């Protein structure tokens, strides 16, 4: 049992290393090769844990080889369009200028139900609203709506431009993030004033997020107070 325990820890660390080596892409949308690697790695990792007569190397080596090959292949596909097309395929247009490309849907084995399901995810329930629909290499559908149905933007309404960075988390579970505070343009003196106004110390704050214009959201720790402070101007 001790051997199983130690092997499980080692393989867990190895898988974390492997996932980090493959990069953030693995956690998001998967290409076909990445999906294969993910499934294989998870299956291979269980073998030396389940059967202690199998040497650990029989688990470690194939995982590392598969991961390294995947990373190298993704590096090659980054530089070579030809390889990219072979490994990942290319996006296919299934609705062009409002018309469904039925032949393309047949090639992709994409049914009307699949298409409608993808459109529903964009809150589109009428196919006539769609100008272009593209099936990406990951299988996800990207949709470009016709002009009358596109979401209105600030630019479209000619709203005055107001450039502002998003708020930053300045206190995270009682720990002050100095870099974040400086990034929104405030200092510890300002922070001390805000904390004094709310009668809390840094350690008593669960979350403090601050926007560059001084509007902040402060959430106290539950053992201090159960109430969340409304947004205030600092």
């Amino acid at each position, binding site marked *: 049992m001790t051997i199983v325990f130690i092997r499980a820890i080692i393989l867990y660390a190895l898988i974390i290393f492997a996932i980090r080596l493959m990069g953030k892409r693995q956690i998001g949308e998967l290409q076909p090769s990445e999906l294969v690697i993910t499934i294989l790695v998870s299956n291979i990792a269980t073998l030396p844990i389940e059967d202690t007569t199998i040497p650990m*190397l029989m688990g470690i080596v194939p995982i590392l080889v598969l991961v390294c090959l995947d990373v190298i292949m993704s590096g090659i596909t980054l530089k070579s369009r030809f390889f990219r097309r072979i490994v990942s395929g290319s996006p296919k247009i299934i609705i062009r200028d409002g018309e469904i490309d039925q032949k393309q849907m047949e090639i992709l084995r994409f049914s009307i139900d699949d298409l409608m399901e993808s459109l529903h995810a964009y809150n589109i329930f009428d196919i006539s609203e769609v100008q272009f629909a593209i099936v990406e290499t990951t299988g996800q559908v990207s949709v470009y709506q016709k002009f009358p149905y596109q979401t209105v933007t600030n630019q479209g309404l000619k709203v005055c431009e107001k450039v502002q960075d998003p708020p930053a988390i300045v206190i995270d579970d009682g720990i002050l993030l100095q870099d974040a505070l400086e990034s929104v343009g405030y200092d510890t003196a300002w922070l001390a004033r805000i904390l004094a106004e709310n009668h809390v110390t840094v350690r008593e704050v669960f979350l403090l997020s601050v926007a560059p214009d001084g509007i902040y959201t402060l959430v106290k720790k539950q053992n201090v107070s159960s109430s969340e402070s409304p947004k205030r101007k600092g």
Partner: protein
Amino acid sequence: MRRVKLCSLILLSIIVLSIGSVLFLNCKCNQVLSQISAVEVLYEKEKTAEALEKTDELCRLWNQTYKILSILVKNDKLSDINGIMARLRPLLEENNEEVAAELQSAAHQLDVIRKTEFPYLHNIF
């Protein structure tokens, strides 16, 4: 591209280690096989005392080799040879006829391990 370089390095290391392990396995198996042959020869010549001494040497060599081979080879392939090595001395002391058969069996199994771990085409497929 840093990841690609790191992965290329890891892959290269694995290739080198794989080739090294095959050569190492081959070398160790040859050592044990030659020791087994030596015991066989002494047994056939009925030099029991010398055969027993050689058997002890063989068992010591096998114990060392087993520790290293168990990292590279599945344990169930080695467990039979373990059993044979444990039985050898008592059989020799009794001057049992099965000594030759056991030695042949151990030699054969070692040879099988050596051949199955080598990347021949029929092993890969």
